[in-house]
């Protein structure tokens, strides 16, 4: 049993400078696993049969590259030498080695492995200076010879090698052992095995490609980044260009753009973005990184793809590209903007193929623009159906994917809370509840200890409680009233207009905990069904909310206006105490304005008074509202003359629509009162901006709206031309005028769409510090004002808080008193502005994403084939080569519909208007797409055509679900019955939540379910699913619990 009589062989090899010596024990009793063996080898398991024409010994190289061909069942009698197996294991990695092992274990396959390196007589030591490859080939040849002799020459052995020298050297050395190349072998032994030949060719092909690639980068997946000094020098000299990487959401694999940044670039001839094509050129930069780019020579420039696609589709070679644009490659990352990413583990079936103890797993981020992340975890199976947060740690040039690690679990896929949390994480919004330290700073206002105006404050503030009629106009049910208005006639006959804004800065001291928290949040986040406040609710809903009939601190701006011309004569800024007399809502105010007094019953403040007194008060209010509207109209007109615009109106309206969607707050039609209030606010913002800029020319926080890039308007112009309108974009005034004219009486949506396209084409308004920008650039394009800021909503915007502090400091400065508060310097303020701008974008994105989430949830449980709510009218507002972008007025959804599907079929219209998928082709013209089928019929889709679409939800495991649109008729939607038509036409606006709630109620009535009262409206949306979903059940249980508590 005891076996030290083995010869001890030393095998040395160099790895790094270290010399490692390993033992090798050789023996004679290595089983040969051949049935022809006459040496009584202890053969167990698989044995090669003796009725073959030859044994096949593949070289290490052949095993590495052509294992797939050796897997063919025709290949019998294959002997895998241990040397070859080890070469696979070391050089090809675990995956291919496992495949080889599986092949060897498969009892049906006639192949064995032979431990030639442990066999005393087949082993050859590596000679000094001999390359590894040569030695391996020699070993295998020697083993083949041994094998041939071991079987006493009964069976010829064919050794396959790709090494020409080996064929020459060993080819005729031993009779009965043939050394030929794999190609020759296939041709002479298997001329009929076509599949093997084809496979051989394709493997050869891919190998060549790899080689040509690896010649460039020495086996690395990506080129190395350049060091930072080189980048900086390169950027200065203009060799490289600095910018922010922006990955195309729809083609995340291949396309990314670099938006040029700042003034650091000397190449002024570069106007547009730089295209980064393919992930190799992107060189490990992640969406949002600040990168340095080198431009490619003009011959290699590419155009952006203009066909619709989603990420699932493979890039086809023949896809049409637009005009070539500057194309570059990333040479270095200047600043990484890695954040937390929400990701999903691959489904179980996929993980299993990665091997049972594969601890490294590729997770798919929720955001399409982020590449897959490799993380190592042992919880892959338990975390299957959960959304998790991961972080990227590193990305080596040798690795195709970044390495990361798992941070925490968010919740189950598809669960509402988990999906909302996903949206928050993806937008880097953190909304932990306010801490105790923050709450301790808050003033107290309980029924026992009501908050009161302190005498000290009363001394320094102007008391407007008795002299002014102050009232607020807000959406119905609004909690955070931050602006109020007043108007009165002065003794000299002039008018006095006042805007009073909640004095948040009185409660939130600079650099207090609350202030720091508010600065971090920067804004209140409105999601589709909830809201995350910037300030604790004691402030936002109580002490800083200018409620009716309560004494409140305010910051006021008051103008003295000429009684006739409404010319501004004087302006006054200051801290005040006010008591709002009326808390009106928009509809009521509008009705008062229209002279409709029935609404009086709805105003609680007028109820308490007796009729005579009430009448007088009502008169007073009526006069104020009327006067206010008149002033606003006048201001508006004046702004219009100065080149003012309708544009901001559009923007506001869109935002209001959004809010409408969410909180069910705003009337369906925009009322004049809206504009009145908005105009007063714009006036206040403008004057405050002027004031703080005068006092602090280098550190005032202002808001600018840069003039848009003319190129962005080209799409708008084209669209308008399709309808016969001419849009002039020379100046903001020309644009506004031409937009007003572009009104199709037959279709009011056209104007609406054009306006929203114009809004899209414009750049976003931004906060900035006045010290970092020349004065000419302060211009607010949309409002046509030379200076503008945000002052009127300090409860939900941090910028307004900053402006309040600036204004207070400016007042103190005027009074020649010492400025107590330390204000932000220009640099700090600029940083703060960048932060606020970023947070505002995040707020907008999260709002949009949550709305989309709710849309998907709304349609998720509906059967698109049968449910009439899934079929609706749509209007084409943009064309692509293989599809069209549609706007669905009923739900306010914008989306893409394919006109050609993945199988290559195109949509074609039958004479009755219904559409079908037929094989054919698409042709895109300036303003229409023509689909022609193979049998000659053709149909066209023109811009602003109304079509009928079917809405369905496209499920996605790793990403957000998406609305999928399919054109089913090329005519406007006709509801099946008159009643339904009425119903859908009454839904002019995009009030999805309202609609959801209503249909939910209907569905519930239809099912005769017990109506559950006291449920929040938003929640009803989830009860309306007709099928029994688990969520519904849970929700019902929860409602029952609520009922019990309220009953008890």
């Amino acid at each position, binding site marked *: 049993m005891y*076996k*030290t009589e083995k010869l001890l062989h030393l095998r040395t090899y160099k790895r790094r400078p270290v010399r490692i010596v390993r033992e090798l*024990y*050789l*023996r004679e009793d290595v089983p040969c696993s051949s049935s022809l063996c006459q040496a009584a080898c202890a053969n167990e398991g698989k044995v090669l049969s003796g009725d073959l024409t030859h044994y096949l010994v593949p070289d290490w190289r052949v095993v590495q590259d052509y294992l797939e061909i050796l897997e063919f069942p025709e290949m019998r009698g294959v002997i895998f030498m*241990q040397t070859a197996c080890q070469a696979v294991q070391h050089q090809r990695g675990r995956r291919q080695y496992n495949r080889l092992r599986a092949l060897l274990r498969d009892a049906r396959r006639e192949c064995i*492995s032979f*431990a030639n*390196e442990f066999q005393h007589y087949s082993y050859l030591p590596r000679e000094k200076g001999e390359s590894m490859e040569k030695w391996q080939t020699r070993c295998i040849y020697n083993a083949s010879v041994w094998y041939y002799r071991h079987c006493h020459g009964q069976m010829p052995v064919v050794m396959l090698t790709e090494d020409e020298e080996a064929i020459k050297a060993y080819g005729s050395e031993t009779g009965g052992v043939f050394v030929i190349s794999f190609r020759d072998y296939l041709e002479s032994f298997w001329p009929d095995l076509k599949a093997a030949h084809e496979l051989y060719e394709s493997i050869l092909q891919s190998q060549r490609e790899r080689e040509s690639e690896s010649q460039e980068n020495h086996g690395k997946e990506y080129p190395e980044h350049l060091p930072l000094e080189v980048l900086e020098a390169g950027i200065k000299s203009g060799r490289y260009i600095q910018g922010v990487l922006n990955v195309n959401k729809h083609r995340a694999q291949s396309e990314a753009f670099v938006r040029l940044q700042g003034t650091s670039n000397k190449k002024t001839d570069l106007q547009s973005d730089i295209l980064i094509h393919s992930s190799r050129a992107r060189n490990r930069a992640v969406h949002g990184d600040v990168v340095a780019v080198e431009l490619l020579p003009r011959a290699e420039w590419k155009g952006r793809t203009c066909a619709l696609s989603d990420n699932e589709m493979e890039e086809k070679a023949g896809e049409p590209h637009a005009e070539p644009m500057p194309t570059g490659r990333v040479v270095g990352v200047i600043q990484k903007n890695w954040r937390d990413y929400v990701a999903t583990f691959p489904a179980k079936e996929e993980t299993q193929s990665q091997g049972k103890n594969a601890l490294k797993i590729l997770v798919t981020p929720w955001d399409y623009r982020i590449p897959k992340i490799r993380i190592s975890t042992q919880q892959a199976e338990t975390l299957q159906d959960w959304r998790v947060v991961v972080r990227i740690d590193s990305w080596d040039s040798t690795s195709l994917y970044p390495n990361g690690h798992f941070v925490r679990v968010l919740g189950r896929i598809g669960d509402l809370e988990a999906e909302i949390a996903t949206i928050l994480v993806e937008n880097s919004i953190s909304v932990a509840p306010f801490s105790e330290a923050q709450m301790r700073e808050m003033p107290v206002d309980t029924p026992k200890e009501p908050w009161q105006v302190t005498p000290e404050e009363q001394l320094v503030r102007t008391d407007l409680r008795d002299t002014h009629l102050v009232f607020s106009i807000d959406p119905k049910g609004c909690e955070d009233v931050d602006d109020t208005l007043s108007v009165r006639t002065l003794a000299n006959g002039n008018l006095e207009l006042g805007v009073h804004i909640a004095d948040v800065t009185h409660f939130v001291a600079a650099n207090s905990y609350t202030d720091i928290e508010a600065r971090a949040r920067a804004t209140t986040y409105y999601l589709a069904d909830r809201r995350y406040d910037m300030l604790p609710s004691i402030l936002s809903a109580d002490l800083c909310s200018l409620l009716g009939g309560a004494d409140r601190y305010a910051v006021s701006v008051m103008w003295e206006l000429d009684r006739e011309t409404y010319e501004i004569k004087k302006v006054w800024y200051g801290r005040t105490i006010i008591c709002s007399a009326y808390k009106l809502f928009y509809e009521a105010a509008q009705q008062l304005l229209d002279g409709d007094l029935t609404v009086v019953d709805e105003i609680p403040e007028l109820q308490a008074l007796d009729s005579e007194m009430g009448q007088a008060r009502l008169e007073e209010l009526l006069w104020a509202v009327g006067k206010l509207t008149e002033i606003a109209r006048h201001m508006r007109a004046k702004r219009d003359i100065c080149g003012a615009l309708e544009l901001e109106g559009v923007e506001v309206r869109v935002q209001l629509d959004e809010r409408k969607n969410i909180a069910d707050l705003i009337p369906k039609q925009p009322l004049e009162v809206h504009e009145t209030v908005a105009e007063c606010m714009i006036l206040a913002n403008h004057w405050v901006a002027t004031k703080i800029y005068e006092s602090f020319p280098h550190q005032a926080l202002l808001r600018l709206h840069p003039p848009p890039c003319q190129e962005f308007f080209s799409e708008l112009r084209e669209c308008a031309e399709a309808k016969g309108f001419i849009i002039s974009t020379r100046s903001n005034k020309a644009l506004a005028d031409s937009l007003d004219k572009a009104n199709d009486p037959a279709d009011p949506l056209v104007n609406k769409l054009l306006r929203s396209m114009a809004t899209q084409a414009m750049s976003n308004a931004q906060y900035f510090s006045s010290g970092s920008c020349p004065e000419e650039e302060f211009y607010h394009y949309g409002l046509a004002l030379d200076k503008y800021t945000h002052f009127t909503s300090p409860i939900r915007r941090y910028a307004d808080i900053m402006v309040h502090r600036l204004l207070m400091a400016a007042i103190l400065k005027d009074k020649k008193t010492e400025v107590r508060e330390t204000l932000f310097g220009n640099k700090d303020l600029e940083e703060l502005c960048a932060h606020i701008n970023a947070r505002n974008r995040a707020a907008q994105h999260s709002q949009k994403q949550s709305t989309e989430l709710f849309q998907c949830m709304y349609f998720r449980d509906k059967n698109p084939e049968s449910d009439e709510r899934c079929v609706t009218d749509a209007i084409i507002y943009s064309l692509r080569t293989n599809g069209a972008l549609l706007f669905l007025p009923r739900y306010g959804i914008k989306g893409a519909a394919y006109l050609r599907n993945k199988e290559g079929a195109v949509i074609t219209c039958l004479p009755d208007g219904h559409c079908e998928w037929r094989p054919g082709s698409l042709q895109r013209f300036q303003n229409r797409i023509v689909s022609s089928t193979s049998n000659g019929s053709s149909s066209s889709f023109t811009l602003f055509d109304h079509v009928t679409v079917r809405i369905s939800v496209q499920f996605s495991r790793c990403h957000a679900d998406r609305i999928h649109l399919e054109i089913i008729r090329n005519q406007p939607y006709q509801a099946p019955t008159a009643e339904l038509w009425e119903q859908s036409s009454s839904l002019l606006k995009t009030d999805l939540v309202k609609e959801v709630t209503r249909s939910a109620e209907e569905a519930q009535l239809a099912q005769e379910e017990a109506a559950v009262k006291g449920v929040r409206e938003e929640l009803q949306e989830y009860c309306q699913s007709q099928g029994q979903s688990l969520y519904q059940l849970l929700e019902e249980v929860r409602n029952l619990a609520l009922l019990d508590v309220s009953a008890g």
Partner: protein
Amino acid sequence: MAGLELLSDQGYRLDGRKAVELRKIQARMGVFAQADGSAYIEQGNTKALAVVYGPHEIRGSRSKALHDRAVVNCQYSMATFSTGERKRRPHGDRKSSEMTLHLKQTFEAAILTQLYPRSQIDIYVQILQADGGNYCACVNAATLAIMDAGIPMRDYVCACSTGFIEDTPLVDLCYVEEAAGGPQLALALLPKSEQIALLEMNSRLHEDHLEKVLDAASKACRDVYAVLDRVVRDHVQEVCTLLGE
């Protein structure tokens, strides 16, 4: 080199041994004339040198002396050139003092110390080349050296390490197998009486497997015993022929 396969499907280990096979052991006794006893052992590429002085009077402070038995003083060290990387290894670092302690425990159990009260036995062991199983090589070398010094022992002390990989116990691990980080068990056995002088285990091993691994280890120790016995007998014969003309 992703994940070495420590045990192939055919049942071979990396160096061509099967699971229960030991490395080649070569040993010589009486390599130094100056010392009372000395021995050199090679277990595969692990090479160890052991020297024994004593029993002699207590050196240094007399307070360490024990009235009923001898003090066993051990010292373990590794040569700077013993590993792949050249590294100065000062005496008294954590690893070597632990090893020293283990050796001391082992030999206090094996040597009949009560025969030499108030005296001291010094055992110095040095690893000249480390390739796994350092402790075992040291114990085996020291056993031979003590015999060479003529100090009476209860029995040979034979040591062997055992690993557990893919549900198979592997005996006498080499460095690569040790470095893989699997469970490892070092056993010092008095083979005749099957008494355990020392048992040490690293990493985690399920208790169901312990018996299997222990069996394999004691089997391996008996194999070692066979070799050592052969070496001792050869040595004695050689000495006899030299002395007894």
